[in-house]
């Protein structure tokens, strides 16, 4: 998920960097009002936690690579969107400058894709889901799972956009690399949804008070900004699946974004994603694969939710595993 130097052009890096800088700067300001003098210890510790957590291996059925936590939604679910964003930013900075993991010039793009979209966008989705499905165990776990998968897909879309803008003067087709990205990120998203879902489920069973709940009353402004964040993520996630078609239909991305923005406030995000799956477009080989994977991804997300919630029916068994 970390973009290396050389993949994106300097102009795109600067643009992404400027955007990230302003959002992170804003987050720094906002998190102080929500965390007060606990800002440094809580956010710093969360950064250390995400960093340590990313070292945990999640084996992939004998494959040489393993899955890892990204952590945007996890951080936001405990500390809220702003501190979550800053925490992930710190992790990315440390990974870049102490591990050479992810480029230095592409740091802005990485922060945008993972900290801004991942945490702030993820919190938007989590929050909206809890509002729609209730703030209990059900709503929170469903929200965490959705938020994880959707933010990873949104990061994929953003990467495709950044890559396209970097190589604007090239005259070759981008479908294949986009399809490849979407495929890979769909799998990563499933992994992230599983890990975050299990982790949040565990935290709910032990210390539900640790999960961040907004102090803001259900006023219009609070809901609007959360819907906005969620809407951006969903629009991007949808765009991810249309990215392989983008060269054929340059207006496709814009049309989808508009529709997603208007429909978002009323409808459940998941239905929106599957709706576009049915868009009748002539498909070439690779694109069929991508769209099929969209379906599989969506189904996978539903299965994960079932898995996580199913286990809550057996509290004795869950507790026995939990006691370490």
């Amino acid at each position, binding site marked *: 998920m970390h973009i290396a130097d050389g993949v994106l*052009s300097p102009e795109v890096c600067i643009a992404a960097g400027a955007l990230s800088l302003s959002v992170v700067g804003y987050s720094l300001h906002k998190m102080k009002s929500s965390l007060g003098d606990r800002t440094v210890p809580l956010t710093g510790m969360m950064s*250390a936690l995400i960093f340590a957590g990313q070292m945990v291996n999640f084996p992939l059925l004998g494959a040489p690579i393993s899955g890892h936590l990204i952590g945007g939604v996890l951080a936001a679910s405990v500390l809220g969107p702003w501190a979550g964003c800053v925490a992930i930013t710190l992790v990315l900075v440390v990974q870049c400058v102490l591990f050479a993991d992810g480029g230095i010039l592409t740091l802005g793009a990485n922060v945008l894709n993972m900290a801004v979209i991942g945490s702030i966008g993820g919190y938007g989705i989590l929050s909206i889901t809890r509002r729609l499905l209730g703030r209990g165990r059900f709503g929170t776990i469903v929200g965490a799972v959705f938020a994880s998968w959707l933010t990873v897909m949104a990061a994929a879309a953003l990467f495709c956009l950044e890559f396209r803008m970097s190589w604007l003067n090239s005259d070759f087709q981008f479908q294949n690399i986009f399809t490849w990205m979407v495929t890979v990120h769909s799998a990563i998203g499933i992994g992230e949804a599983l890990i975050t879902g*299990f982790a949040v489920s565990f935290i709910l069973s032990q210390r539900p008070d640790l999960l961040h709940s907004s102090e803001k009353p259900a006023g219009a402004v609070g809901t609007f900004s959360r819907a906005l964040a969620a809407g951006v993520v969903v629009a991007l996630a949808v765009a991810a699946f249309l990215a392989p078609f983008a060269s054929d239909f340059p207006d496709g991305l814009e049309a989808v974004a508009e529709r997603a923005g208007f429909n978002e406030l009323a409808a459940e995000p998941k239905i929106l994603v599957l709706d576009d799956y049915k868009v009748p477009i002539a498909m070439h080989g690779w694109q069929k694969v991508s769209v099929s994977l969209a379906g599989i991804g969506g189904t996978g997300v539903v299965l994960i939710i079932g898995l996580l919630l199913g286990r809550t029916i057996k509290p004795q068994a869950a507790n026995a595993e939990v006691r370490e």
Partner: protein
Amino acid sequence: MTSGYLDRYGRVQSLCHRLPAHIQFLLAVGMVVTGLSIPVELWPVQVFLICVVFAGHTLAHVPMSYLFRRLSLFLPMMLLLSISLPFSQGFERGWEMMVAILFRSTLAFLTMLWLVNVMPFDQLLITLRRFWVPEVLIALLSFMYRYIFVLWDELDKMRVARRARSFGQGRTIHQWKVSAQLIGMLLIRSMERAERVHSAMCARGWDGHVRKLDSTPNTDA
């Protein structure tokens, strides 16, 4: 993982290590930017620059085995990313792009590895402060660095405890669940520790305002 891990080669003495931190930083970033600015067609220049970076590593006493190990993890990933390029319209253009991306990213990666190894963490913080990064971010980085190792140790202990009680592989999903719960447990413990640290900070007059000791010419703080 011990605290020496991140700074393994940071305490070595060499020409490169003796450069002031901000010079090291600017050199590295400069090299990355240069690499990116070279047009795709001039890829031999990239190769030359890569040799320059290898020379830098030699000057900094970085072992070649370490470099090759890191490269062996990095290059396959980059290959996977760029392999789709030649398989699109026009093999020539695609190969050129793939080679360009590979060289640029390898050059940048090796450069960052150089920087990682010649600049220990405390120097990094000083450099960041010099480049106008807000104090609160520096305090956060400092704090994070302090506790990464504490959490790593706790994670290790929990993993050992788990391994001592698991009798065989178990389904993959089950393994994922247990590992994710480890992370959840670590999160809970860490947040509880953060509360205790907050109390300790308040006990010594903390009010949320980050205060720093000025550097004096003869110390590194």
